């Protein structure tokens, strides 16, 4: 079980809901993923009232929602968006994104820490989308965050873990803090590798939504995350520089010992 702000979840997979070929595929992908937490957003409502339909679809999945502040570029925007999200989605949880740069969608860690502090003061439970910076992590924790969500790679890049060393360092420095790799993964093995580093969960969207078969990919990531976590807990062998036989050498037939 992982725990985020006193909520326990059996699944360590948080799935984004954007960019699927159809609502039905989204719905099936959530089911296939096993995710108990899905991210959602707020957007300008048009005449059609699609918002209600989407919200209905999400509610039907039974998943807990984690609204985001995607696209926000300032503390003010992020805080206002979070307030609106809290009202609509009726949850204190907020995935805090404050983007500093359009091309890479890299977090603006300055605005992030400030917004995290303000939102915490207002009673939010903040899931900050951040870089893998140790000091930023400390500031976010000081600001009241009880979860950290460093990136694996830029959003939507599908590159996997760009800096495993730094992710290991984060894990080592904050052994008691729930850590989620958020963004940049492309393959199930990327997710498994993050879990093997001891991370608590994975949040991703594009790798599933834009796969050839999003439902199957959702299931694949769900399985990989379970596998990676189980592997971490089963205490893997250490990589060695020189090979060793896996078949015992005692009792080798004579022609093999000459």
């Amino acid at each position, binding site marked *: 079980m992982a725990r985020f702000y006193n909520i326990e979840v059996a699944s360590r997979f948080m799935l984004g*809901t*954007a960019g699927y070929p159809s609502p039905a595929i989204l719905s099936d992908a959530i089911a296939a993923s096993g995710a108990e937490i899905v991210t959602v957003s*707020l*957007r300008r*409502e048009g*005449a059609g009232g699609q*918002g209600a339909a989407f919200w209905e679809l999400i509610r039907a999945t039974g998943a807990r929602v984690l609204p985001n502040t*995607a696209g926000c570029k300032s503390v003010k925007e992020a805080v206002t968006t979070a307030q*609106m999200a809290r009202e609509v989605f009726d949850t204190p949880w907020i995935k805090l994104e404050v983007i500093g740069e359009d091309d890479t969608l890299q977090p603006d860690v300055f605005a992030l820490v400030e917004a995290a502090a303000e939102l915490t003061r207002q009673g939010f439970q903040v899931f900050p989308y951040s870089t893998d910076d140790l000091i930023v992590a400390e500031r976010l924790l000081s600001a009241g965050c009880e979860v950290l969500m460093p990136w694996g790679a830029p959003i939507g890049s599908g590159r996997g873990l760009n800096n495993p060393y730094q992710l290991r360092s984060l894990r080592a420095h904050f052994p008691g803090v729930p850590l989620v790799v958020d963004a940049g993964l492309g393959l199930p093995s990327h997710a498994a590798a993050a879990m093997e580093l001891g991370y608590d969960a994975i949040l991703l969207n594009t790798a599933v939504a834009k796969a050839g078969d999003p439902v199957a990919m959702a299931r694949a990531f769900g399985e990989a995350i379970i596998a990676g976590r189980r592997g971490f807990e089963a205490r893997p062998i250490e990589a060695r520089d020189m090979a060793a036989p896996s078949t015992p050498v005692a009792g080798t037939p004579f022609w093999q010992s000459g």
Partner: protein
Amino acid sequence: MQIIVNGTAHSTGAGTLAALVEELGHDAAVVATALNGDFAPRGARAATPLAEGDRVEILAPMQGG
């Protein structure tokens, strides 16, 4: 009265945010509102008057990553 709703010029007779939401046919329980960049909670919409040139945001649930 001319205001801006979700970035588009809009001519309205609504005197309050609540009236505007109703006028636009939105489900009041599903949308969230902001007035001139500040959050306007659902319970306060009826007591929130609109003025010429106000910028109103009306947001609803949408997919997100």
